[in-house]
């Protein structure tokens, strides 16, 4: 049986750091529909639009009616465990060095049978719940855990399973860098990370000569350190990386610079440049300084480097003219993040983008309700880490805009141009 995860011991400097290996990443194009669902934290399967049949593994036509109109549809996540085993000597090195792996066949409530990773408490005949998660290679896999009466498992109990931990970036015992302590999400984020059992939290603070309201409150906290870090200054980023890059398992990039306004507003060019400096170049400077070390530490013990999170805005994806230049910088940050994600993936390190709607902060003062609270953003960010997601949308406005963009991007563009927020 599993044991609670212990805080990692200090490394033995005489031992080689284990190099990151990855599980097999090759998938068919159809199978990446599931990657998409897993990236968003959904449980979904291919469903036939003609006859409704769920099918798995991913196919090019419905096995029931041969329709090719197979769509990704949210599916019931329950099932029954038919059979279970443990792979003791897998052929693949990634699995071999982590063996044994519990796997099982589950008859899903939606119909198909799935070969999945299995919580070791599951027994054949048990009712189970399934999740679609991204593995260390960033590809979708199924994980099943007990869900019968009296068998439900807490998040903490689940995290005792090493297989489970490979499918997320739980902050527990991990050391975390928050890159811009001046982001108003800071205090709720620190609280949420503490609640999740994070290790040391390192907070970057730019322009330390300017007042910082939370200095005393943070100084009074255990395992919190404030360090100088200015994302617009190459040397500042590099200097911090020299001291801390090898001691950070989760990097949370909170860089932001919101100056609302359409094109042609007062000093919009300067504001746009500053937003790019922080959101785009800031991420780039961080990537150059921190990513190589994090990649190398992707398998460094039970709590090795695990994730990079960019806290972004929904305007990164929905380019509201009222936030014209801000949207540009946000979109640039997303574009860059995909290159960074591909790099980090070499070490099995995840990259998540959290897209928040307008918040209750000063620069969204006149933005229409509903707005999202900083604590909701912090909670969603920590949840995305635990579940190993790649993107999450926080707040009703962000979810609404995202859904409308999925439905018809041109309609959304016209409505936003006309000032119709919803």
């Amino acid at each position, binding site marked *: 049986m599993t044991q609670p995860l212990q805080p990692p011991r200090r490394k033995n400097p005489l031992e080689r750091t284990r190099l990151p290996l990855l599980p097999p990443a090759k998938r068919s194009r159809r199978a990446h529909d599931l990657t998409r669902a897993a990236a968003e934290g959904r449980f979904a399967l291919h469903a036939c639009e003609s006859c409704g049949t769920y099918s798995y593994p991913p196919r090019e036509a419905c096995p029931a009616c041969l329709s090719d109109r197979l769509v990704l549809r949210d599916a019931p996540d329950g099932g029954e465990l038919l059979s279970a085993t443990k792979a003791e000597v897998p052929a693949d090195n990634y699995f071999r060095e982590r063996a044994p792996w519990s796997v099982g066949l589950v008859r899903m409530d939606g119909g198909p049978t799935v070969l999945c990773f299995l919580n070791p408490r599951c027994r054949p005949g048990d009712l189970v719940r399934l999740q679609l998660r991204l593995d260390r290679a960033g590809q979708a896999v199924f994980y099943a855990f007990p869900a019968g009466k009296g068998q439900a498992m807490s998040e903490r109990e689940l995290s005792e399973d090493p297989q489970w931990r490979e499918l997320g970036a739980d902050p527990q015992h991990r050391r975390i860098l928050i890159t811009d302590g001046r982001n108003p999400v800071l205090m709720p984020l620190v609280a949420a990370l503490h609640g999740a059992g994070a290790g040391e939290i390192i907070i970057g603070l730019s322009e*330390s*000569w300017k*007042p910082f309201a939370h200095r005393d409150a943070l100084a009074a906290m255990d395992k919190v350190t404030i360090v100088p870090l200015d994302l617009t*200054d*190459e040397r500042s980023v590099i200097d911090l990386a020299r001291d801390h890059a090898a001691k950070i398992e989760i990097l949370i990039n909170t860089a932001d610079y919101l100056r609302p306004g359409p094109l042609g507003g007062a000093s919009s060019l*300067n504001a746009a440049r500053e937003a790019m400096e922080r959101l785009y170049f800031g991420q780039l400077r961080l990537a150059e300084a921190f990513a190589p070390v994090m990649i190398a530490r992707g398998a460094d013990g039970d709590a090795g480097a695990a994730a990079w999170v960019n806290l972004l805005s929904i305007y990164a994806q929905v380019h509201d003219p009222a936030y014209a230049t801000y949207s540009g910088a946000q979109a640039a940050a997303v574009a860059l993040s995909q290159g960074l994600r591909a790099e980090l993936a070499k070490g099995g390190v995840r990259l998540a983008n959290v897209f928040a709607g307008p918040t209750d902060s000063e620069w969204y003062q006149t933005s229409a309700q509903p707005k999202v609270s900083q604590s909701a953003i912090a909670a969603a960010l920590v949840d995305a880490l635990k579940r190993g997601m790649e993107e999450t949308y926080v707040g009703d406005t962000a979810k609404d805009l995202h859904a409308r963009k999925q439905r018809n991007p041109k309609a959304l563009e016209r409505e936003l141009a006309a000032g119709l927020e919803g």
Partner: protein
Amino acid sequence: MHADSPLSGFALALATGAVSIVDLTQTLSPDFPTIVMPPELGQSMPVRIERISHYDAAGPAWYWNNISFGEHTGTHFDAPIHWFTGRDLANNAVDTLPTAHMIAPACVIDCSRESADNGDFRLTRDMVLAWEAMHGQITSGSWVLMRTDWSQRAGAAYANLADDGPHTPGPDAEVMRFLVEERAVLGFGTETIGTDAGQGGHFQPPYPAHHYLHGAGRYGLQCLCNLDQLPPMGAMIVAAPLKIQNGSGSPLRVLALVPSSGR
């Protein structure tokens, strides 16, 4: 140099140490505080230094950087065009600045004791008159430098920001009008960020140093240091800003030539 050259005596003085050179310049670095404006207004870019190469793949035998900064960062010079009051004057930008103004005598008024514990200290006309009573009248065409020892502070203590803005010493409106109109100074220099007091926006007129100096075609120097090494009178200031086309100011190296006897 010919012995009869007007500069031969000067060269000798430098060689013998009879005249020493004091550097009044802060190091131009990314983390040096800059002027803070309300965030909805345009902002000065801070100093940024990004490496081009460092004897590496990007340039195997050489080291160099790209730098960027606003015109008003670090130890810097304010030209008359910087303020609306000086916008229509002739030769009001750094590129048209008369070279004759780049070397001028300095009067140093020591306010360090008064400023030590008082970020809101204001230099007044009476204090200048008292200084003149002791050291003689300020000659026209001189720099007046306000010594506060503020440059010995660092970081937050230097910027001294509160929730109602910065609290740093500076001149009141009356003294600026007096210095410009009655003493015809070349310019006014401080150790703080700005020739005006931190709270100078609340003065009448707002930012009186900028208002009167630049309105009369005079100059400002700020973020100076080492003013404690200058005599009250007798030093010469070398202040030649970058020749930026239509520039409103520029970071620069400010040097003081100081006679040994005057120290």
